[in-house]
């Protein structure tokens, strides 16, 4: 997700949720300073390997490695989560992939689901009953598919709550989920190939083979997840109630009214259903050209200001170059 696709309110809520998960993870790994260089190198490894294309047999397409799952399998979910955050920070800063404001959303959508839901709730329980090749493939594909589906669903929710798209919720969802289902299967297969290799050559490197003192509590994690959901829901509802007429405000500025009457049986039926089910208020775009007209003077003004400012900037650059 890029910065322009989320509003500061949605981004803030997602930052809060991701920060809570990060603080919890940091507390969990604080005493293990031996892991720090390994985390650094594993982060760089996932970063570099994600640029390799793996041919998915029978599809003619290619896929990439599922970073969160692989990192969690080797470093454990907490160190894996922190490593994924560092990868996302570097991707955001160096490759313009994402953005500073959308970072909280991206951490949640990619790192949280992959490391905690995918690894802790899906991969690990399957592997704990036996770690044959078949189980590793099944666990990796399932973990990868479910974390990607959750990530894609979160992207839809975050974008819809930000109000930047006219795409209906159902259409957006039906476009996002199937694509990520195919990607998830491919990523799961690639990750399982690497995990099978490691479990055959150096099984002691895998987190679930070394973990004995740090027993994972499902009840505790479930309780934390419930609190996170409650906090998230509270945060989102706060956002919704504090800005109930943000979109209507912009329409009112253009047309002078916030709601437009519509005729026809279908509209009436739809209105009835919406009034019963609607979470968001009525939304309609006006049918006149005034917005284009009012925008014209703004664009001309922008051009004038831009010419002045760019001229000033060029002058500053020239002067500073002369001084140097």
């Amino acid at each position: 997700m890029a910065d322009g696709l989320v509003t500061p309110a949605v981004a803030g809520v997602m930052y809060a949720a991701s920060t809570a998960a990060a603080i919890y993870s940091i507390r969990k790994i604080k005493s293990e300073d031996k892991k720090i260089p390994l985390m650094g190198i594993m982060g760089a490894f996932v970063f570099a390997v994600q640029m390799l294309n793996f041919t998915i047999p029978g599809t003619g397409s290619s896929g990439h490695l599922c970073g969160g799952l692989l990192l969690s399998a080797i470093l454990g979910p907490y160190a894996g989560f922190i490593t994924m955050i560092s990868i996302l920070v570097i991707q955001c800063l160096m490759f313009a992939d994402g953005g500073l404001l959308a970072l909280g959303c991206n951490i949640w959508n990619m790192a949280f689901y992959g490391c905690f839901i995918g690894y802790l709730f899906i991969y690990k329980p399957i592997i704990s009953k036996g770690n044959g090749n078949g189980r590793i493939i099944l666990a990796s594909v399932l973990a990868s598919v479910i974390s990607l589906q959750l990530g894609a669903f979160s992207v839809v929710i975050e974008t819809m709550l930000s109000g930047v798209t006219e795409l209906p919720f159902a259409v957006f969802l039906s476009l996002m989920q199937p694509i990520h289902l195919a990607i998830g299967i491919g990523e799961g297969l690639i990750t399982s190939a690497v995990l099978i290799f490691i479990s055959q050559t150096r099984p002691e490197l895998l987190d679930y083979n070394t973990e004995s003192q740090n027993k994972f509590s499902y009840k505790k994690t479930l309780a934390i997840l419930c609190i996170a959901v409650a906090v998230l829901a509270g945060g989102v509802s706060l956002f919704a109630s504090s800005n109930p007429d943000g979109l209507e405000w912009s329409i009112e500025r253009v047309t002078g009214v916030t709601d437009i009457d519509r005729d026809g049986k279908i509209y009436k039926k739809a209105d009835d259903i919406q009034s019963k089910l609607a979470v968001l208020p009525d939304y309609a775009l006006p049918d006149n050209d005034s917005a284009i007209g009012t925008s014209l003077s703004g664009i001309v003004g922008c051009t004038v200001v831009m010419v002045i400012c760019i001229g000033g900037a060029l002058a500053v650059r020239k002067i500073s170059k002369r001084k140097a």
Partner: protein
Amino acid sequence: MPSIDNAEILVKGIEKQTQNKSIVHGLNTTVKLIFTVVFVCLLVSVQKYDISKSIAMCIPIIMLYIVSDIPILKTLKKIWIVLPFCIFMCLGNIVFATNIKYGLLSSFVLLLKVIFSVLSTNLLIMTSGMEKICGVLSKMHFPNIFVTQILLTYRYIFVLLSEVHTLKDAYSLRAPKDRGLNIKVWGTLVGQLLLRSIDRANELYNSMQLRGFSGAVTYSKKETIGIIDLIFTLIMAFMLYILRFTNITSIIGGRIV
């Protein structure tokens, strides 16, 4: 993600760019980081049909690119990675808007928001560098483990990118017709690289221990806030306020039209 060749060029290009000297490069990194966050928040909070304000908000970034002597058009080419999803959203806005003109308006505003927020972040990294940003995060009391982790990952990206590049070249020479890695070698090829990386991490940990590593990297060079930083903050605060919260562009344009 970009291809491995592009990624190497990009990372090295950014490292080279941070060595340049300009007023923006010389500014305090904390000031630049705060400016970037404030700018992005103000830009993305512009109303979805407010085309004049969204264009106006781009002005400070264009100015800073010019002053820092970074080619903005060249940088635009690098940020293609964010565009596919953004274009998908824009198309959705055009197709599903009740009036196509409003769909076009909201799409244009959305495109500007995405491009210029990414450009502002890019400007921050190209004029500061990862070390300085990590130094600021450390000063802001971000957990040491997190800051050290970012720094180590960043440093090792150079090494591992070149290893993956070599691996990819070797594979391409042996299987020139393959577009990607064949399923038969997925595990062994990537697994071998992973094992080498883990061994390297152990060597790195031992050498860090010998140098007295205690869980955090320390930053010897401290940045201070000078007069230039204060002037920059005042100018940018004034500009952002005028461009975001007043209708100055519409007033100027209205007089001309």
